[in-house]
């Protein structure tokens, strides 16, 4: 994995699109295969005005997005991917007026699919607000070629 990928491209992928920039996403570190994304608390991102807690939809968006980042880290490069499906379990209410962190790990990568687990929390993944399980399709040319799944790729990962 190049320094250019980690230091320049990944922060751009984390927060450079209009939606991620509007939400205030910040890349909060990469440790091995673990990637962290932070959203500073903001009034307009609240889901329940009664509690001041960030919206469930925002948590889902963070988990979806950080899972994509973890997939690119596992691939060691940028390639085109698309979320296939995403399941989120909400374990407890987030703390009001507090930044939220999402951390993901791509624990299995095949030629076509990346399998990712992620957690959302304020302090530690041991005390999660939500956890997710997601699958991403690798839509880059190599994976999409007809029969790509039948031939062992040169230098393939198992």
């Amino acid at each position: 994995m190049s320094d250019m990928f980690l230091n320049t491209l990944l922060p751009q992928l984390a927060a450079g699109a209009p939606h991620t920039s509007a939400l205030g996403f910040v890349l909060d570190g990469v440790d091995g295969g673990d990637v962290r994304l932070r959203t500073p608390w903001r009034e307009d991102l609240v889901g329940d005005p009664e509690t001041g807690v960030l919206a469930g939809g925002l948590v889902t968006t963070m988990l979806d997005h950080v899972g994509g980042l973890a997939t690119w880290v596992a691939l060691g490069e940028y390639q085109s991917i698309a979320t296939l499906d995403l399941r989120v379990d909400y374990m407890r209410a987030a703390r009001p007026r507090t930044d939220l962190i999402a951390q993901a790990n791509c624990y299995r990568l095949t030629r076509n699919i990346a399998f990712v687990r992620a957690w959302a929390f304020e302090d530690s993944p041991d005390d999660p607000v939500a956890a997710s399980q997601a699958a991403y399709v690798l839509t880059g040319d190599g994976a999409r070629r007809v029969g790509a799944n039948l031939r062992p790729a040169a230098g393939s990962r198992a």
Partner: protein
Amino acid sequence: MDALLERIPYARFLGLESRLDGDLLTVVMPFADRLIGNPLLPALHGGSTAALLELTAVAQVALVFPRLHQPRPINVTVSYLRSGRPEAVNCRARILRAGRRVAHVTAEAWQDDPDQPIAGLTANFLLSDPE
């Protein structure tokens, strides 16, 4: 406009609009540049569509089962079926079952053709005690 969605800051951030036919809510997310997740395609961020699905489900449950507190998600599964083009997205939810505590809901989001949804949601919500 649905009263609950009007009160939710995140629904306003997404620019959601809604209309009611009987007790069936249709929520629309008009296109805005800040919803774009992939500027190269361009495509909507999957998260903005997921949030639309979830908020539509919450609002539909709250409409049919009014409670003191809004329904809280227990779990949510989103299937992404097609890439979201830079156009408005429509969404409707269906409550398949509501017990005393849990409501099971599905929702679909589409752009111009309801038979070609761009994403689907299956979710369970916790209902607070009746007022």
